[in-house]
């Protein structure tokens, strides 16, 4: 083991700049909040922290963050399953790609807000509409990433599977999906950050609970400390999910590639 390896084990690369950068942002925020003469426009960091503490202690934070997380999880699962299936199909079949590609390009360019408004009008102001609206915004992105990965699948392994008459399920499980794991993991990580932002918009426009709904209430009363408290608390939740679940999973999915090199 060489020196560089020992060093990376003690402090993960980028940790020190990351901590310093966050500390600097807090410093700028503190200075700015002290310079303004209207504390309700930009409250100090400790005022926001006290608000987060109060929300957590009352249980309100967990209920609404839980509702938002539930919507994030449902739309994420729906978008990943449908997007992966479409991407596989379009990557494998030239004619499917030619027929579906125009719709895909249109869907990639329709603003999220339009999809949300139309879903609420056509399906109704309910949970199904909310989850479908979010998933519809994400599916095209997943589809594109999986399609590119599918085009790069190894033809020799495909032939091996065909020569040994492997079943479709076995081929998908043991030959195709392991090759797509890096694309699936990357689109999952990119997707979760996009999805939670859209979920807040969906809640803002048409739900009666969740972080987005709370932001709507606080917006009506121009309560900046409340808006910042909810936003920062939920950012922390999503960062924890990214660091503790998605990153380790992505590293695992990519392991055989780096080892094989």
């Amino acid at each position, binding site marked *: 083991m060489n020196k560089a390896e020992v060093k990376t084990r003690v402090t993960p690369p980028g940790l020190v700049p990351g901590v310093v950068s966050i500390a600097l942002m807090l410093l700028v925020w503190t200075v700015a909040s002290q310079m303004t003469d209207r504390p309700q426009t930009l409250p100090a960091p400790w005022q926001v922290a006290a608000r987060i503490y109060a929300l957590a202690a009352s249980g309100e934070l967990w209920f609404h963050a839980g509702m938002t997380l539930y919507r994030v999880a449902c739309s994420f699962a729906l978008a990943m399953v449908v997007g992966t299936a479409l991407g596989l199909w379009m990557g494998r079949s030239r004619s499917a790609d030619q027929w579906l590609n125009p719709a895909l390009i249109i869907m990639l360019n329709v603003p999220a807000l339009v999809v949300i408004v139309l879903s609420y009008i056509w399906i109704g102001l309910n949970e199904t509409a909310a989850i479908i609206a979010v998933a519809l915004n994400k599916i095209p992105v997943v589809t594109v990433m999986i399609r590119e990965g599918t085009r790069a699948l190894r033809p*020799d392994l495909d032939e091996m599977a065909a020569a040994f008459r492997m079943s479709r399920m076995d081929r998908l499980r043991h030959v195709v999906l392991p090759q797509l794991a890096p694309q699936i993991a990357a689109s999952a990580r990119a997707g979760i950050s996009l999805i939670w932002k859209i979920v807040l918009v969906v809640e803002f426009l048409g739900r009666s609970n969740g972080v987005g709904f709370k932001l709507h209430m606080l917006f009506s009363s121009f309560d900046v400390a409340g808006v910042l408290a909810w936003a920062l608390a939920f950012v922390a939740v999503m960062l924890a999910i990214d660091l503790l679940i998605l990153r380790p999973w992505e590293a695992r999915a990519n392991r055989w590639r780096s080892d094989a090199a």
Partner: protein
Amino acid sequence: MQLDLIGKSYGPNQVLGPIRLSLTRGQRLAILGPSGMGKSTLLRIVAGLDPQFSGSITGDDRLALIFQEPTLLPWRNATQNITIPTGCSVAQAHEWMARVGLPAHHNHFPRQMSLGQQRRLALARAFAAQPDILLMDEPFASLDGETAARMIALTSELLSGTGAGLLLVTHDPNEARALEARPLRLGGNPAQIQG
């Protein structure tokens, strides 16, 4: 297995045929010829990997194919590389690994094995499929002389032990001789069996 190939074309160019071949258990045939002659195409047709040809293949023999490269699943270990494609049991996979000289490699991933060991694993996989006829496409081409000789001896021993037939595609007549396979030379345009 009976192949009655009328012709195989790429666009307007007929590259193969007419070719008639028949092969049963215990028989060994080698298709010889320079590269680019269509030997691999012929083998792919026999293996059922290329349905775009005119003619017919009859017979219900079980076939197993050994490719130019080992074509193992890098994300599955050696045992799974046999059980998943062939559907055989773990015990059978281990038995075949022992017979090809890999008794201690059950949990190794392909990347942890040398090319020679990967070749032997591919051989074990093919025999675990219990083929009536083994199809081999230039299987010794990228091996050094000594490793190739050992692989040929091992292949011959397993063929005799199981009674499987062999259809070998190679550019090297010595390989055909070493495997005691009857040589058939492919040549001409479109390529046919000569003589």
